[in-house]
């Protein structure tokens, strides 16, 4: 079966297995040369693909227990974040940390140590993980946590499936009074204004900025900075307060076919950007937005990855340390604007401090850009790689489908240590993905 990540590039012929139990999983794992776990395939590139044996966790998706007082949920790795919201929001609970799509599994969220719009304040997904049960090369299941085999725990969070197959985990949910978000939008005319807005608003629980990648010169980095708070009951109008967790079922749009790649020429992208900016700039005041539109705006268009056409697309996401952020971001945005291959989605986010062995975040700013795959954008991406190296940034492996092993090592000194930990624990021979092969991890 041909497999790819969300970016539909690269496409790799791979054997897939969907074990139904721990024993099934062990049998497959022990009988294969090397394996990698796969959640819901929302990583963009080749991190959840192993040609030999890709182990899907979709049948390992049961919820195991929930503690009403602490909000601790124990669940199998294949449970989707969206299922957790569906089950527990009506009872007043929401994930502590969530990425921009709810269609990720618990295992995928742990393996990529995902971040949300609250990273600056509350950290990455690890913040809410109490323990993890993981199957190692020998087929044995080990529990690791903050005080039990801390090393394995630390490397599994952000380890991209290369430390074993996560079977189940305990995470803590956040208690909320409603499913509504108070959203405030600030229009920033350029990059430094946007960065300043992030710094001024650092007490906001959630913050993220959408950048107009086509703006250049004086307007370089013009953005909409969007802040959010969970709305309290007392902040809701009485019509909503009656059923604080109720949400109208939204129409789902599905993209049934691949758009021809000509669709995304620079003009359509520019038009898209302009419209978004103009309409956004008018909404400076506070609005109430339902949780789904706030956290997961893209989820209402199923298969939106098809608008980039058959060749697929790539997401470029890097983070710069705080001191280098403005310079690094400016360099990237200038390069993108001058190349004229504007990106549909460009998202900027402030990260808070993070102390971990191989997770992506570090204190500073992260930028994510989508590009359709073609010769021109691949050349551009290589130039951007050099900027990331120059400004001491690093790459997000969950989004990567193309960087080289050298680029990884030039940006992430932790890679070699990660490899030696994998070797020492006998993990490198059993767990491998196409990405790990490419990056020599």
């Amino acid at each position, binding site marked *: 079966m041909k497999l790819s990540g969300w970016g539909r590039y690269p496409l790799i012929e791979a054997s897939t297995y969907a074990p*139904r139990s721990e024993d099934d999983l062990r049998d497959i794992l022990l009988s294969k040369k090397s394996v990698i776990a796969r959640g819901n395939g929302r990583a963009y590139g080749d991190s959840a693909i192993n040609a030999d044996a890709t182990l899907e966790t979709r049948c390992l998706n*049961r*919820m*195991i*227990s*929930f503690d009403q007082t602490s909000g601790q949920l124990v669940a199998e790795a294949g449970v989707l974040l969206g299922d957790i919201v569906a*089950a527990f929001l*009506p*009872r007043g609970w929401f994930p502590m940390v969530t990425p921009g799509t709810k269609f990720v599994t618990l295992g995928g969220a742990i393996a990529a140590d995902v971040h949300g719009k609250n990273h600056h304040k509350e950290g990455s997904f690890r913040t809410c993980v109490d323990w993890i049960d993981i199957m190692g090369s020998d087929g044995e299941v080990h529990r690791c946590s903050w005080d039990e085999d801390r090393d394995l725990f630390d490397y599994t969070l952000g380890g991209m499936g290369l430390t074993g197959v996560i079977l189940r985990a305990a995470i803590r949910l956040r208690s909320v009074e409603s499913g509504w978000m108070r959203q405030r939008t600030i229009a920033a005319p350029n990059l430094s204004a946007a960065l300043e807005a992030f710094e001024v608003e650092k007490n906001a629980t959630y913050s993220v900025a959408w950048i107009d990648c086509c703006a250049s010169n004086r307007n370089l980095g013009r953005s909409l900075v969007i802040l959010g708070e969970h709305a309290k009951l007392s902040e809701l109008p009485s019509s909503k307060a009656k059923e604080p967790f109720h949400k109208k079922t939204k129409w789902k749009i599905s993209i049934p076919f691949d758009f021809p790649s000509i669709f995304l020429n620079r003009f359509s992208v520019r038009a898209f950007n302009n419209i978004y900016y103009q309409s956004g700039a008018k909404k400076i005041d506070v609005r109430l937005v339902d949780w789904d539109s706030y956290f997961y705006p893209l989820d209402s268009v199923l298969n939106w990855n098809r608008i980039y056409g058959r060749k697929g697309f790539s997401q470029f996401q890097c983070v710069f340390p705080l001191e280098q952020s403005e310079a690094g971001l400016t360099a990237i945005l200038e390069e993108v604007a001058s190349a004229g291959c504007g990106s549909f989605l460009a998202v900027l986010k402030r990260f808070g401090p993070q102390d971990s062995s191989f997770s992506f975040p570090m204190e500073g700013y992260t930028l994510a850009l989508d590009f359709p795959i073609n010769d021109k954008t691949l050349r551009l991406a290589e130039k951007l790689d050099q900027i990331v190296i120059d400004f001491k940034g690093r790459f997000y492996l969950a989004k990567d489908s193309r960087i080289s092993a050298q680029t990884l090592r030039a940006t992430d000194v932790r890679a070699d240590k990660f490899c030696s930990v994998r070797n020492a624990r006998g993990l490198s021979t059993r767990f491998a993905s196409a990405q790990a092969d490419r990056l020599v991890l």
Partner: protein
Amino acid sequence: MAVAHKLASMGHPIQLAARGANSLLADKTNIELRYNVTVTLHEFDALALDTHDAFVAGLGELPQIAVCAVGLLGDQYQAEQDVQVASLIVRSNFEGPASILGVLANHFEKRGSGILVGISSVAGERGRATNYVYGSAKAGFTAFLSGLRNRLARKGIHVLTVLPGFVATRMTEGLDLPATLTTQPSRVAEAIAHACKRKKNVIYVGRVWWLITFVIRRIPEALFKRLRI
């Protein structure tokens, strides 16, 4: 199991019946956590016909909707060689399911309400060399359901016959099924829930199977017997 999830998501309490029902403890908890409904487990063997009365009596509360998903694909070649194998296939797909639905039907009739759902198969629509033992048992079950529906139609009890094509389940794991003709269990569950609401009689899941069956049933026997399908 997918049907249980779907019905639970609609707020129905769930009774799960199976051989070795205790192995379903994790599924019970899962459904309870996800949908906030109660789930009970019940020991049940479709082949132990003489236990069926006691089984229904032991349910505690008689369900509003009863779904029979018991089935055994078996191995056609072995069934040709060994009558025991053939008999097990026939009993698992016809005798057992018909027996339990028959007992439930009597209880529903007394109460005057309820929906009985039998999962049969498109394989029962015409016997083929590759799986006619299974197919003929399903054909028998389909006919049984049709008769049951006829008997109960004026008694306020509805009978739904479900004819799935290929579904990606444990039964078909490892078989090389054409991806475009294979549905997910959740789709079958959606279709069943919808059909219960609309009081449909016979449904095909996916719909193309209606067409495929329609064509296959109309091929003249003289020709059909030479085909390899």
